[in-house]
């Protein structure tokens, strides 16, 4: 390994920075920017001799891409069954006249779904349903939309498959689904409870008990589920996926293969129209990830990230320093996730942490710190997470007075919520640091 920065490293870093500037400034679409950066990295790397086509292909994390693809296809088949609509209407009827209960129930369900399914899709389905529920109940949908987005991000942070950064972290760190939920579950549950309390406090004016009665017949539950047979078949396939997630480590299979097994079962049971199913997959997101993997793979092949990891090894040399490094990483990741996309940050941090590991450092606590930071940090601004943007967009579109979530309104709620959540997570991380060493 080189001991000093050389020309190839500088060129690779230059391409990475130029790509990220294009991605974050959105001069062109982020997927186009990632593909442009990836192609440039491979071409320049081949010319200068630090990167090959084979290395570029190897840099693409197939486990991440296939897992995301399989989950997208499963969601695409689940959505038309009406499962989400049924759940939302049951919650609305169950919470009766209490807006606070409605907020807790809706957020809880969205969080639980986000633990297994993509939280962006969950929000795409739940946000318009939430506005409709609020419209029928004659209440402001704003607190509900914000809470759902924030708590879906929190919920998604608790599992290996809940958030794309977690999939990448789990794949790079060879972390099983069970290990992920065991380590991330307790701090995330604590953060979730505290976040709900903060949200209830901050939205107390909008959540005062209602005076008039709500008639349950304002919602038509009979039409919610479009096809009971399809719903049960999809729930069976998803049940299989979840069971395989919990046991994939014992079975010696990748999470992606677990998801693909469930997908195969779903395809067999549902027999969907291919043109409809494949049209529902978010190819743009998948290609964005592929581009990022290739770009960062080039920087790694240049030796820069390994050198950076070796130089940072001292930071993780002893438990005291490791704890501090973990806390710094958590908060830096949170700040970065608030202002830029957390995916590029995660993809860049992964080889650095792997470099630390190669230098002999104990990196397990850093994986958890990174997962907590990128998972919670996005909540502080409306651009910090895609789920937030969906909530904002729905609040703008609904045309209900007082519902619009401005960037400032988001930060007024998001920043304190995130700070409290990070403080709770940091406290748990510090007190139970030995637990995070494995």
């Amino acid at each position, binding site marked *: 390994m080189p001991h000093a920065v050389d020309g190839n490293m500088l060129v690779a870093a230059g391409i990475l920075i130029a790509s990220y500037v294009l991605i974050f400034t959105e001069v062109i679409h982020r997927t186009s920017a990632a593909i442009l950066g990836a192609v440039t990295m491979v071409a320049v790397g081949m010319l200068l001799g630090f990167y090959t086509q084979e290395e570029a292909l190897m840099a693409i994390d197939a486990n991440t891409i296939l897992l995301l693809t399989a989950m997208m296809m499963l969601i695409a088949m689940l959505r038309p069954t009406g499962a989400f609509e049924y759940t939302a209407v049951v919650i609305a009827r169950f919470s009766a006249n209490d807006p606070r209960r409605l907020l807790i129930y809706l957020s809880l369900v969205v969080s639980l779904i986000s633990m297994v399914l993509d939280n962006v899709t969950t929000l795409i389905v739940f946000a*318009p349903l939430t506005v*409709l529920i609020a419209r*029928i109940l004659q209440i402001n949908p704003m607190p509900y939309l914000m809470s759902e987005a924030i708590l879906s991000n929190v919920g998604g942070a608790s599992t290996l498959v809940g958030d794309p950064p977690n999939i990448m972290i789990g794949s790079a760190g060879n972390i099983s689904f069970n290990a992920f939920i065991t380590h991330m579950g307790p701090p995330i549950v604590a953060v979730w409870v505290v976040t709900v309390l903060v949200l209830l406090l901050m939205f107390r004016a909008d959540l005062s008990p209602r005076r008039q009665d709500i*008639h349950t017949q304002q919602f*038509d*539950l009979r*039409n*919610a589920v479009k096809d009971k047979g399809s719903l049960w078949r999809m729930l069976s396939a998803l049940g299989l996926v979840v069971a395989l997630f919990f046991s994939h480590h014992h079975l010696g299979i990748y999470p992606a293969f677990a998801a693909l097994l469930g997908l195969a079962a779903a395809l067999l049971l549902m027999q969907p129209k291919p043109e409809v199913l494949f049209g529902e997959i978010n190819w743009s997101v998948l290609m964005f990830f592929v581009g990022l993997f290739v770009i960062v793979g080039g920087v790694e092949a240049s030796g820069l990230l390994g050198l950076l990891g070796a130089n940072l090894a001292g930071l993780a040399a002893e438990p005291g320093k490791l704890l501090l490094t973990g806390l710094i990483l958590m908060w830096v990741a949170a700040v970065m996730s608030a202002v830029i996309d957390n995916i590029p940050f995660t993809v860049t941090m992964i080889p650095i942490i792997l470099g630390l590991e190669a230098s002999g450092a104990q990196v397990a606590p850093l994986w958890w710190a990174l997962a907590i930071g990128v998972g919670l940090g996005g909540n502080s601004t409306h651009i910090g997470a895609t789920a937030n943007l969906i909530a904002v967009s729905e609040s703008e579109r*609904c045309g209900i007075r007082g519902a619009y979530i401005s960037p400032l309104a988001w930060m007024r709620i998001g920043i304190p919520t995130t700070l409290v959540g990070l403080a709770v997570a940091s406290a748990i991380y510090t007190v139970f640091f030995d637990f995070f060493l494995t």
Partner: protein
Amino acid sequence: MRLMKAVIETPVARHGMLIGDALRICVDKGVPGIPFVDNDTGRIIGRFSVRNVFLHYSIPSDMIKGAHLIGHEALHLDLSSDHYEDVFRRTIDCTILDDAACLTSTAQITKAMALMEKFNSSYLFVIDDGVYRGVVTRLGLTRVLLDEQG
């Protein structure tokens, strides 16, 4: 020229016209939309659609997505007459769609039906040598076919 039997002559919409006036034309003539023409050239550059007015101003997207979930006791969802009064006094310009499907009066009925399917529309504008002749609707074409059977 069987198509001409179904043509409904209508005025056209222009820049600055009020939504209420354009809707009145559509209602009086029984057509779902009318052409929107450029004030200077007289060329058709879009269409005014009744459906699009309601999509734009009166039917929230969340209600469309969840229409099947709204129960029969949800009795407060209609917008007020003040809202509609405000909408009808606005100009049509921001409701105009730029995809105006047209055909000539010599076109066959089957082609007209096919064009309606292609453009997911229930009406088309008939133009001969750049001159607007009127609107044909699916119902109008059906009436022609029924009348021919006696």
